[in-house]
């Protein structure tokens, strides 16, 4: 049975006049991997810190299994948390970092060895100091730390970041298994393709606001039509005559909300030659996500306003 485990209700966090998390509400259910997707700086990490009480919210409430995180006794036995794999003492060995956590939460040293084995850190690696770890190794250590207390909930911030493809595949296996055993997983990512490989449910955040949520299949569902013609202008005119709204997709092709059969019919009536006609793949989510990312990226690019002079120089 699915239960609502992580619940955020109208959570808001402001830094001065900047609203990092803006009235965010969502639910993560047990037995599922929920992906928390958004560009860098969208408010994912802040939301996650609010869930575990590291950051106080200005409004709203985040609960885990109905409790505030701080009310859960020995919380690491219930909720495994990885917020930043690099937030470890550079001078400790990987094994020692785990032993400290294990001692605090009251699990034995044999559990540390089990977790090291689970995440694939061998004896030599566990003995090395964390300053010599790659980001991928830190992520593995962070996962081991999160799972040390045998929790039923995992909250992981960008756990796949820094992993190689084999590592991503491994992570996917571990998290899906965890969810299949009834656990609840919330993981964030700034990469759509990463998260769509692992998550069942998606929550998309942009500029502190939730902009979409649903199952992966719903959000990535085929939406509308992708069509390319020998003569794009003729196709555009034909579609307009048929009352079909279409937008250029950038490569000379058009995208439309209607089904492929209607686009094909309109093209046939006007005698336009098509070179490609197919359902658009996950266009909705991908375009929305690109839009979100591009909005932020553009700000970064535009800010150093020098191009005028440079351009003239280049032309001359």
């Amino acid at each position, binding site marked *: 049975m699915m239960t609502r485990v992580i619940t955020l209700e109208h959570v808001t966090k402001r830094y001065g006049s900047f609203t990092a998390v803006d009235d965010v509400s969502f639910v993560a259910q047990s037995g599922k991997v929920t992906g928390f997707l958004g560009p860098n700086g969208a408010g994912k990490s802040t939301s996650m810190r609010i869930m*575990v*009480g590291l950051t106080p919210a200005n409004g709203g409430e985040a609960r885990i299994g*109905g*409790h505030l995180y701080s009310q859960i006794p020995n919380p690491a036995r219930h909720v495994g*948390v990885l917020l930043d794999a690099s937030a*470890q*003492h550079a001078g400790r060995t990987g094994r020692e970092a785990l032993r*400290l*956590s294990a001692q*605090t939460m009251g699990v034995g040293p044999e559990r540390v060895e089990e977790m090291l084995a689970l995440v694939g850190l061998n004896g030599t690696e566990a003995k090395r100091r964390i300053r010599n770890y790659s980001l991928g190794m830190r992520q593995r250590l962070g996962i081991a730390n999160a799972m040390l207390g045998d929790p039923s909930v995992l909250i992981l911030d960008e756990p796949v970041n820094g992993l190689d493809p084999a590592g991503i595949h491994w992570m996917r296996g571990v998290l899906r298994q965890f969810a299949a055993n009834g656990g609840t997983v919330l993981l964030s990512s700034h990469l759509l393709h990463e998260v769509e490989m692992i998550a069942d449910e998606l929550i998309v955040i942009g500029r502190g606001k939730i902009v979409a949520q649903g199952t992966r299949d719903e959000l990535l569902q085929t939406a509308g039509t992708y069509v390319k013609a020998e003569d794009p202008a003729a196709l555009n005119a034909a579609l307009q005559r048929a009352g079909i709204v279409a937008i250029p997709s950038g490569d000379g092709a058009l995208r439309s909300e209607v089904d492929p059969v209607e686009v094909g019919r309109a093209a046939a009536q006007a005698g336009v030659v098509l070179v490609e006609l197919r359902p658009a793949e996950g266009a909705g989510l991908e375009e929305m996500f690109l839009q979100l990312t591009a909005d932020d990226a553009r700000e970064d690019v535009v800010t150093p306003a020098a191009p005028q002079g440079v351009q003239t120089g280049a032309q001359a």
Partner: protein
Amino acid sequence: MSATTAPTTLDISGTSRVPFSRLVRVELRKSVDTRAGLWLGISIVALTALVLVIFLINADQKTYVNAIQASAIPQGLLLPVLGILLVTSEWSQRTGMVTFTVEPHRGKVLWAKVTAAVLLGLAAVVVAMVVAALVTAVGGTPDAWHGVGVRLLLQYVLLQVINVVGGLVFGLLFLNSAAAIVASFALPIAFSIVTSLIHSFHKIQPWVDPGTAQMPLQNGQHLTGEEWARVLTTVLIWVVVPFVVGMWRVLRAEVK
């Protein structure tokens, strides 16, 4: 809010809170499980021993009281650093993100650190007392044990506990190892210079300058009521008030 709050779906009835004693043990472990921490501990012991060996060779009056006073110098310098690192490494190394999620009651973690600091301070004091006793036994001048008593030992313990907790408080105020270490050395000295240079401060100086007020603690002399009051006011100013401010801030601040 209660109408919309989700039902309890996480059974926490079988889990007990993390006992305070376990947090103290973890803090003690953290203070020696890195190279920096380990070497600091070794340095405290080694420098205390070294100073006492030099004392044995060089001093005119080789009495236990003088030996204890000599050992107070390296301990007074290094114990505050130990206290500082107990707190600041959580921020400088960002381990606080793990520490404060595994035990979200930050006040409890900080009190565990204070307890660990006091225990480490006591251990250092015991080392100093034992080595001083050995040195005195080996090369003590006649009447070497004069003035040794419970008062001397307790006052010395109190002095070094103030030292180590005072360091921890600097750590708590700055949350940065380098800044806290520099400030813990420079501020009291600067303060001492300023108060002794400015004429109108002469009268209050012994009440606010820890170096002056706490000096009588290290030679086992009998403190008058006024001298005890001076120790108390300097502890209030340099330990208690900054601790309350630092704690208040850490409890409210964001851990990143």
